[in-house]
């Protein structure tokens, strides 16, 4: 079969004068445009002269002041990520980084540079995953005789591309929060990194369903090239199965940490259903082959089936016990089935990043467990890591249990705690003028507080002060504090300065600094 293979596929662009949306996306290469993962080469810091060329010891690390430690870590992270350096230089950076990270842990204070690096690892992981899938979609876009030979099936390819763009955009949005976290400190910085991590996780969950879906599309692409199955049947199957993919992305769209965790928990079941549909498709192909043998070149059908065996592995890549018990495709002579054993593809760096973010409180243990699970991590595998015990324990439970926990912490369904804007809506324009728009829209900065519940429970008395906080008194306080500061300062405040004040106000009232998106209705 004469299909372009791999990322080097030549794009059939411009043949008809105009590119389809699919082609435009693939040529635009969005992750190179919007995702800056390294922070440039950076200047030479005099203090790190030694750390640059030779391995430093613990004693060197102990002698560094807090600020110098932070700067050196930041500098070494940049060096580690520089592709123009010799591998040995980068290895020195990695080793020294480990020494300094240990020193930072010994001092018991989280280092902003390491915190940000951990979130960047998550974002990079998601964008790398997206890049791999882009290769698959690029291939499909290059094949004009498959899904693209009819508008009703081409639509599925375009929608898959749209979803991948969403994944890339979402992961990249995390970078805005990291940037803001750079100029914040303490809990405010951690809350912002949590928002970045939430976006990386949403992107990852999206990929976890998009990946088997693309395998499904690949199979359909091959099948569409042969007069095996009717267009109407193929369309019906695609339309039915795509709803499940749509459901995940709809749940992710709000970027609500709880919703993301629930979407994530639903993925294993959905992949199982998709795998069944995949197997049914294979069975259909085999049946069709038998009845239409006279009309087909048998060799082509055999090729499709062999191709399918390779794809089938994508459904087993994630490893919850239930997903691993899928019936593998029973294809005559397809001994390659053994190669589709479940495999976990996560890097040690990624696991270390997850651990770090749980430890500093940027992501919850439930969120971490779900992030690991959706990558095929089992409880047994987690035992071999230095992940926090709580995360290991949560991995041992079923996804639905975790999802229940999520709903329970906030009260299930309609009884959920109301969400309040920390940056008052009535002053939306004020905040927009100071940079709170796009990813930093004030709707992304709300907190959950069970005020109604507490008003009822404690009514008056000692609760009087707390219950006044929202919305009237809080809004008044924020407005007056910011306006007063700007008047004294004789200029507008920056996003970072406003965030500092707001998180300070929250801290003074022990309002948990965990931002979730606003939920209407």
């Amino acid at each position: 079969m004469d299909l372009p293979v791999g990322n080097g596929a030549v794009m059939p662009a411009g043949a008809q004068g105009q590119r389809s949306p699919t082609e435009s996306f693939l040529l635009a290469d969005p992750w190179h445009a919007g995702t800056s993962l390294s922070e440039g080469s950076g200047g030479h810091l005099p203090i790190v002269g030694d750390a640059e060329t030779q391995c430093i010891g613990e004693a060197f690390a102990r002698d560094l002041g807090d600020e110098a430690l932070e700067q050196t870590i930041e500098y070494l992270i940049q060096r580690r990520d520089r592709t123009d350096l010799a591998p040995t230089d980068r290895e020195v950076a990695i080793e020294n980084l480990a020494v300094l990270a240990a020193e930072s842990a010994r001092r018991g204070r989280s280092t902003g540079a390491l915190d940000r690096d951990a979130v960047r690892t998550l974002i990079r992981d998601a964008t790398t995953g997206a890049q791999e899938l882009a290769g698959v979609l690029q291939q499909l876009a290059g094949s004009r005789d498959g899904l693209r030979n009819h508008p009703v099936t081409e639509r599925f390819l375009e929608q898959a591309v749209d979803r991948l763009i969403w994944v890339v955009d979402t992961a990249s949005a995390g970078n805005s929060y990291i940037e803001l976290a750079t100029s914040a400190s303490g809990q405010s910085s951690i809350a912002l990194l949590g928002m970045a991590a939430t976006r990386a996780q949403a992107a990852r969950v999206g990929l976890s369903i998009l990946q088997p879906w693309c395998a499904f599309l690949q199979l359909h692409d091959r099948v569409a090239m042969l007069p095996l199955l009717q267009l109407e049947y193929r369309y019906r199957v695609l339309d039915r199965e795509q709803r499940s993919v749509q459901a995940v992305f709809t749940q992710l769209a709000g970027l609500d940490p709880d919703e993301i965790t629930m979407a994530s928990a639903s993925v294993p079941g959905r992949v199982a259903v998709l795998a069944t549909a995949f197997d049914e498709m294979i069975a259909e192909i085999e049946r069709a082959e038998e009845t239409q043998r006279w009309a087909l070149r048998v060799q082509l059908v055999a090729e499709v089936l062999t191709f399918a065996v390779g794809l089938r592995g994508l459904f087993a890549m994630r490893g919850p016990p239930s997903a691993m018990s899928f019936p593998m495709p029973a294809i005559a002579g397809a001994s390659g089935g053994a190669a589709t054993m479940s495999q976990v593809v996560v890097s040690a760096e990624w696991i270390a990043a997850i651990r770090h973010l749980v430890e500093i409180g940027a992501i919850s243990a439930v969120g971490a467990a779900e992030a690991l699970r959706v990558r095929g991590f089992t409880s047994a595998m987690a035992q071999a890591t230095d992940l926090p015990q709580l995360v290991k324990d949560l991995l041992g439970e079923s996804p639905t249990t975790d999802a229940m926990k999520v709903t329970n912490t906030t009260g299930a369904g309609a009884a959920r705690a109301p969400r309040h804007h920390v940056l008052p809506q009535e002053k939306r324009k004020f905040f927009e003028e100071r940079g709170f728009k796009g990813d930093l829209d004030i709707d992304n900065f709300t907190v959950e507080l069970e005020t109604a519940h507490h008003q009822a429970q404690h009514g008056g008395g000692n609760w009087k002060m707390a219950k006044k906080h929202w919305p009237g008194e809080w809004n008044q306080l924020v407005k007056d504090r910011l306006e007063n500061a700007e008047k004294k300062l004789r200029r507008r405040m920056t996003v970072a300065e406003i965030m500092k004040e707001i998180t300070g106000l929250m801290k003074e009232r022990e309002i948990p600094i965990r931002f979730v998106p606003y939920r209407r209705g």
Partner: protein
Amino acid sequence: MSYEKTWSGDWHGRILERVQQRGFETVTQYASDRPGVSLIALADELGSGEVAATQIRSLLVEEAIRTHTIPHVLRDQLVRELHYALPDGWKYPLDDEARSEVARALARWETELQITHHLDCFNDEMTFKAGQDLMDADFPTGWLPEGPEDPVIITFVDRCLGRMPS
């Protein structure tokens, strides 16, 4: 949930009890023993995740009203805010970042006491002028007020209350 825990039940009594366990009769006495320490740090000391800084401020203001020592509590709070804003002390002239820290510290001080705790003793115009003068003040490098009796702070707060000609 620390928020629920912090604000549930008789938090006034709870905080007073913890202060007394540490050998002080009032919250004012306890706080006076640690001049310049932020209320957030004091809240952590009295019970991390169980006591809020704003609750301590509330008790300090209540005690000040009872003992007719409002100017003292104003000075005490201002000293804490300035220490929090410039941990390494003054540097003349203040650069943009330090200026922003001081401006925000003054805004916090004024609005918290005025809005949350309903102290309407400030003369708005005088407070603004005094703040501008403070931000332009040529204090020695590293300077920070030692406590509520620091002469700079006494003069500053008196001006904010409209007690002295500017």
